[in-house]
């Protein structure tokens, strides 16, 4: 990965304008400027670059209390890669060992298996029954169980061919989303290749600053994906998309021979909704008599169209009523596994989101991010249906 020192220039690019105060979900909860990107950059420089301040528990807390949501970066006039700097800071601080060994091992295993499935899935249900909170429901059959690696021809003429990268969350938490992706592609004349031997995209390890584990996952994926022969690799998950587009290359060592391959693979990544809006749907769209609202995932900055596409799709669906919430782009507070360690903070962020959703009167919430679907879905104060935009095409 880029060595920590090389982020110094990026930190210096920060013009101190304070515009990041407008969108940082962590800062907006307690309104303490220490938590906003401007101050984070100054502190990281003072503690880890210039070493004029010591590493303290408070400093660690500040570095840990970042969702890596990229909202600051998207607001920033000069595109300071704040979340990458925070990741690099975590890497420098913890050397990949922020969590205890057992947790680290478990995480690695989950990443290798692309999610919690099989025996681990059962374990999580037992844990849930036993009262362990914050564990999502795990369906008994993963996407991998339903769709073996191979090539899946479409109905009728082949209009295009894509590789489908189904990430951890789709594989084990939301296999029905994967199923819907497969069905929609099939109906719309697109041949799908599911490669053998994929791993997690690496974002959980990257978030921990554990770049060694991340590069293991990345290399495995790049190896597999660079052997496929399509121009497009689709994902239904905006965080996997962001990781492949923006994080994979920077997480490898500067002189890593994988870099070139990684760049080639990363160029091919598209989110499924934006891809379909580009190529067009051939299958007639059925009416949906529902009121929906769209939550824009934080990890949208990697593509210009990833947040327009669901809106475009919703416009095409007869009878569908779309109501925008006041701040569709505001974070839900999940941040991958962030909410587990920062319960109160995340719940505060989430309750603002669910309040806005409620105000729209929508019965369905649409969003591409599985982490948001799970976390918003687990809030007690709403009984919404929550789904990926593509679900709208197959609603019964």
């Amino acid at each position, binding site marked *: 990965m880029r060595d920590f020192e090389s982020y110094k220039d990026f930190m210096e690019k920060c013009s*101190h*304008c304070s515009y990041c105060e407008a969108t940082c979900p962590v800062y907006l909860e307690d309104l*303490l400027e*220490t938590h906003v990107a401007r101050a984070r950059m*100054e502190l990281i420089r003072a503690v880890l670059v210039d070493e004029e301040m010591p590493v303290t528990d408070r400093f660690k807390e500040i570095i840990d209390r970042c969702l890596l949501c990229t909202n600051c970066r998207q607001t920033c006039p000069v595109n300071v890669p704040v979340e990458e700097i925070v990741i690099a800071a975590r890497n420098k601080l913890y050397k990949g060992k922020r969590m205890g060994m057992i947790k680290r091992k478990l995480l690695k295993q989950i990443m290798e298996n692309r999610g919690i499935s099989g025996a681990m899935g059962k374990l999580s249900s037992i844990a849930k029954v036993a009262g362990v909170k914050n564990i999502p429901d795990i369906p008994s059959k993963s996407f991998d169980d339903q769709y073996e690696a191979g090539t899946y021809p479409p109905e009728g003429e082949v209009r295009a061919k894509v590789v489908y990268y189904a990430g951890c969350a789709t594989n084990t938490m939301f296999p029905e989303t994967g199923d819907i992706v497969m069905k929609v592609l099939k109906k719309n004349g697109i041949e799908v290749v599911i490669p053998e031997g994929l791993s997690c995209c690496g974002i959980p390890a990257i978030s921990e600053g554990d770049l060694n584990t991340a590069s293991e996952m990345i290399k495995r994926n790049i190896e597999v994906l660079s052997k496929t022969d399509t121009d497009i690799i689709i994902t239904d998950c905006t965080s996997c998309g962001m990781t492949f587009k923006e994080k994979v290359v920077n997480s490898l060592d500067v002189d890593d021979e994988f870099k070139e391959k990684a760049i080639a693979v990363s160029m091919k990544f598209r989110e499924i909704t934006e891809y379909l809006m580009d190529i067009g749907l051939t299958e007639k769209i059925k009416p949906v008599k529902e009121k929906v609202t769209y939550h824009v995932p934080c990890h949208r900055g990697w593509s210009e169209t990833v947040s327009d596409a669901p809106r475009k799709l919703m416009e095409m669906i007869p009878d569908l009523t779309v109501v925008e919430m006041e701040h569709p782009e505001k974070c839900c507070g999940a941040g991958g596994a962030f909410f587990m360690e920062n319960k109160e903070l995340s719940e505060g962020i989430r309750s603002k989101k669910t309040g806005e959703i409620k105000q729209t009167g929508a019965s369905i919430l649409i969003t591409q991010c599985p982490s948001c679907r799970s976390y918003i879905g687990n809030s007690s104060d709403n009984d919404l249906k929550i789904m990926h935009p593509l679900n709208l095409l197959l609603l019964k």
Partner: protein
Amino acid sequence: MINLGKDLSRLLSKDKVKTDPEDLYSYASDSIRYYAKNNPDAVILPSSAEDVSTVIKYANKNSIPVTPRGAGSGLAGGCVPVDGGIVLDMKRMNSIVEVNRGNMTAITEAGTVLSNFHRAVEKENLFYPPDPQSMSVCTLGGNIATRAGGPRGVKYGTTGNYVLGLEFVLPDGEIINTGGTCVKNSVGYDITHLMTGSEGTLGVITKVISRLIPLPPCKKTIIVGCKTAELAAQIVSTITANGAVPAMLEYISQGATGFLNSYIKTPLISEMEAYLFLELDGIESQIENEANKIRSICKDLGVSDIRVIEDAKEAKSYWDARSKLQPILQSFFKKLIVEDVTVPRDKFPELIRALPEISAATGLLVGAAGHAGDGNVHPSVLLGEVNDETNKKSEEAVDMIINEAISLGGCISGEHGIGLHKSAYLEKSIGKRQVELLKQIKKAIDPDGIMNPGKIWTREAK
């Protein structure tokens, strides 16, 4: 020995008091990094005027300096705690208490973010025109304390024109209410407008009563490319002289246009020495009328690059880019010194003409972007390297800019306030007697000098 953190935690609640070194470090400067000198000794996040009063009483008793702070987006070092002490971060006091349609007024807490306030009043079809470009973060309290303006100043004036009353905590801790919700008021000295622009040196604004106007139903953006800076200046003065009053009339010099192109669809042409960004607002027929007037003025002066932007999203992209200009420029240079001089509107061309000469005389880049329509320009001195020599040269450049503006009948600040940045030039701008008057007023209201010391005037005059 006093223990600030402990004492204040006892007086308020723990969550409102921060004394960890990391938190203190985060409150050392505003938008201009090089103003950071001292950390505060405590950061307090009050949630009511009573909290503020409690803190001030404590500070008064113990002679501790208090520096109010909004978003810390200031460009004059106003919220920098030069003597340490307490920084009062006002942003948790952010509720919009009332938007009164019948009276066209609003009451808000001082920490309310300006763009949130805009949204709230516009929902009621009302309009609060002041629009500092930092509106997504800056607070109403900060705006009032600096008398902030923005592009819409040309037609609608600045913050001061919309303040009807304040809730204010005096330096002895007493909470007073000045002005009120009446749109007329002729009772004694105008304390409300004395506090407006007081930059935190006379006390703490906790609530604001604002005047609102009806929301103009339509708007239109026009972009004009000018082959010479002279021509741009001429267009500005001809538009004004012809009685067309755009809601915004912004001037952007050649050096800056390239930086904006990544944000807009149709690139600005690099050969143009200057661009004018205009927004017209009002009822449709009036806008059409003004647009035609502006078109024919431009044509008569031989301008061909006139873009009338019909698409609202595209129009927004120009204004978004404009609002990012200063931070973008800043990121390309080691140091950027933003001035805020304002000259009578008809003297705008002369000021623009002087800038290349100042640049040539000092060998430094001097750019200009600003609110041309109201004569408020932000000449910026841009340093690629910071060393003794460039620092000295930049001081010379700033001297020249200020002297030029004053000789044209202008003032040293149109909207940013004096803070630390321009205190050395205060006397030059308003004269010795007025500086003395300011100090006497300060002494009368804040005899122990606890409120935001070291600002507006220098301790040792230059």
